[in-house]
């Protein structure tokens, strides 16, 4: 059952991700991105991380994507005609991209990733609750990155306002 759901959403995610890169209309690409985000959220649910799934939908599909869409509408770039780029860039990019893809697939397919399992098994998560587990980790082991992220977001916000706001001071 889980496997069926996994393949369903994994396929959907891959197809939509291809759509994001391949579609010429930026709005369509953005909508495909929404499908990718939501499919990923479904995969997180399968990994017994419903909190991450909900956060994924809320933040990525609900906020970040909307920002993308706003930027697209404000710039109204129209449909990409493929002009502008140097002629040899596309084929070259295709060759290199394909080479990298083949390399990665070969390497990753040949190896069984021997990663050690973490301490948070599905059973353990069901027992303590995944939200509680995330909360506890954020305020103990991951306290430093958590606080740094808040500073980072603050700086980004201040900077963006400085760069984008109307001239107020002379």
């Amino acid at each position, binding site marked *: 059952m889980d496997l069926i759901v996994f393949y369903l959403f994994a396929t959907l995610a891959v197809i939509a991700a291809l759509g994001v890169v391949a579609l010429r209309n930026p709005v369509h690409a953005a909508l495909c991105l929404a499908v990718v985000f939501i499919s990923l959220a479904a995969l997180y649910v399968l990994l017994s991380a419903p909190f991450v799934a*909900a956060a994924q939908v809320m933040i990525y599909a609900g906020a970040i994507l909307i920002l993308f869409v706003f930027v697209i509408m404000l710039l109204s770039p129209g449909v990409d005609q493929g002009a502008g780029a140097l002629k040899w860039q596309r084929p070259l990019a295709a060759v290199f991209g394909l080479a990298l893809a083949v390399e990665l697939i070969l390497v990753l397919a040949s190896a069984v990733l021997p990663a050690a399992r973490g301490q948070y098994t599905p059973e353990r998560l069901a027992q303590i609750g995944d939200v509680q587990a995330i909360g506890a980790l954020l305020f103990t082991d991951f306290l430093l990155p958590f606080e740094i992220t808040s500073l980072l977001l603050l700086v980004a916000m201040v900077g963006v306002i400085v760069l984008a706001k109307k001239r107020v001071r002379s």
Partner: protein
Amino acid sequence: MDLLNNLFVNLYDWLAGALHALAAGLNLVKDAENAIVAAVMSLVVIVVLLLWLVLMVLVLIWLERKNAARIQDRVGPNRVGPFGLLQPVADTIKMFIKEDIVPTNADRLVHTLAPIVVAAPAVLAFAVIPWGKGMFPVDLNIGVLWVVAVGSIGTIGIFMAGYGSNNKYSLLGGMRAVAQMVSYEVPQVLTIVAIVLMTGSLSLNKIVDAQSGWGGMQWYIFAFPVGPIAFIVYYLSALAEVNRTPFDIPEGESEIVAGHHTEYSGMKWGLFYVGEYFNFFLVCTIAVTLFFGGWQGPLLPPYVWFLIKVYALILLGMWIRMTWPRFRVDQLMGFAWKTLVPIALVNIILAALATPILKAIGLI
């Protein structure tokens, strides 16, 4: 009394039992039998829930029109059925048989998908609402987040409608709606955080259970000062989130025709319309669950209590709609970011500080 209190739970159990008995006749493996029964029962719940929601929407439409008429000193619908009760039904039939028009230069796929993307999440969100004691379709331990997350998908639908119609009014309305919904989602979620802080859980069932003291009257709205502040902020931002007057600039008819659904007709338009009422109903049920003890209450059966509270909030929303003029765009965004968000943030700090005290003096 007990029979009445647990009416729907008992019905569910009885049906599940009957199905088990039926399935037992097929001589299946125990696991397969359980899986089949569970699947059929979820299907039953889904169908019942959908029918119930459609019924609620019909009632809401009638109520809204009657109320509006009352406040504006008119009679309102009174021709179809007693007190015009069947008017929404007639309207629905009309919508079904109307021609479905897609503008020539519209982005067909996006245009067609938009109403579905708007209405479907609203229905999904109802899956976690505790309608009465033991009456919840699913108990997610992240219930509140589920509602918020699913609700944020609807925003994309509105954008799709605005963009896909290839009409400047649609696009303007769509962008307005998206900006507004994204902005008001922030205070809305932040007030929920205050409640979650007091409960210590994101599950809507646990939140309701936490309000069971005082014979079912220990509601968070009484948890002074956090609860009342949170409720006011929540309710205002919820009204804005569902684009109702005085926050209805996305479809301000005097400025941009009908906003994102200008180009829609027939059942597609109907889906937007129904979606709006789904959402309105949803935010009221959430408000009741978070602040008014959900189905908790003395004497009456839980589900009756729940409906009474929900309808009280709905009437409040209709009253506000009929008596307030529309905000201007900049006022609206300013109100969200400069008034509601700071209040909600302060309220979170208050909640963190006050929770131990409130617990000690027995307010929560």
